[in-house]
């Protein structure tokens, strides 16, 4: 099985890795690049814990092959803060206790940021539908939705 050389951009940095074509982008991010913020919950695109963006589009990185990232621009949870300063979404998640075990949190944050990049003023219903593919077994979702709404309000100024 020959591996394929992949050059891609992750959180603004050019990176290279060798991927078996069966390996997912999630495996490559975690095991080759050490970016373990993206989690594998289900591995079948149902839970959203592995959410990243590829060329600005929100996807489940468990449903993308590492070799498909060639020439693309990937952003992960590791690219969300600015030099250690939390993104408003991250801060509101902490302040509103929108997480308990934290396993789903990176996926929720990446997905929520993708929503606010597209729609800075979503309704609660829009937030709930957008995040329907991010599963959380701890919080019951209400605190997550409130944190997203409050972060959106703060970011609109």
């Amino acid at each position, binding site marked *: 099985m020959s591996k394929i050389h992949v050059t891609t951009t992750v959180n603004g940095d050019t990176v290279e890795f060798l991927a078996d074509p069966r390996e997912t982008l999630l495996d490559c991010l975690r095991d080759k690049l050490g970016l373990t913020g993206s989690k594998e919950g289900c591995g079948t695109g149902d839970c959203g814990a592995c959410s990243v963006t590829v060329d600005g589009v929100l996807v489940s990185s468990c449903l993308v*092959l590492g070799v498909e990232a060639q020439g693309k621009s990937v952003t992960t949870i590791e690219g969300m803060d600015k030099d250690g300063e939390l993104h408003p979404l991250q801060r509101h998640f902490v302040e509103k206790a929108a997480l308990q075990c934290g396993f789903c949190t990176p996926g929720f944050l990446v997905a929520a940021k993708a929503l606010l990049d597209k729609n800075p003023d979503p309704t609660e219903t829009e937030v709930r539908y957008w995040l329907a593919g991010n599963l959380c077994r701890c919080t019951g979702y209400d605190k997550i939705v409130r944190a997203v709404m409050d972060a959106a309000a703060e970011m609109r100024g």
Partner: protein
Amino acid sequence: MRYHTPATFADAATIAASAQGVTRFLAGGTDVLVQLRAGSVLPDDLIDLKHIPEVHSITRTADGGWRIGVAVSGASLGANKDLVADWPGVVEGMELVGSTQVQGRATLTGNLCNGSPAADSVPGLIAAGATVTVTGPSGTRDVAVQDIPKGPGKTNLKAGEVISALTLPARGKNAGDAYLRFIPRTEMDIAVVGVAVSLRLDGDKVAEARVALGAVAPTVLLSDACAKAIVGTTLDAKALDALGAAASGECNPISDKRGTKEFRIEVAGVLARRAAKIAYDRAKGAKA
């Protein structure tokens, strides 16, 4: 597994035709990768179609229809306002597939080729009269969407054949379409029943109609009986009752964890009536 990135559909077909083992084409990957990781389908050759230039584009055809590339995602489809205005039923079917994350990758053509009788985008395409272009080792041919599914997980495509484009006809005037599905929750589920209706009006009367039923038989059905029940009517109560009865009569469903046979037969009639009313209102100018 060998990973191929052909630059043309002819090359993709050639690779597939000469492959010895299991072959899969990769577009959005939302079914192929799940099967690969579950070990249910382990391709020897995986042919990624996304390096073929035209696969990402949505273009108007010369006659006013639409040509949709095989890697156009649900998210891209929904972002095309002119397409949504022409074929809201087709787009709303696709947008019901999976989550926001899945929408970023999943494609109409992939949903069709996965061969699920419950595929949410397929009834809308069949009701619309959509066709696909099939490229094989000996050239291309156009096939109606309803002739692609063969049974659960199976299509009528031959070895070495690949769908290279999907075409929606021109919408024309006084026409509308709609898709409704039943699931026991509001989001993130697979259709228990799905019904698509596309119709054209002449004044207040239905002049043409196509009705497709999903998840009630081994393949998505195009129902002539349903169309006959409403053509020539103003979609009054009597016509809607006839449509509901025709839709229920077409069903040949299984009972499974999502719903019993009896439930599916009942719900198909209910959804057919409701979808026809939405399509009728849209033909009268209601916005999706």
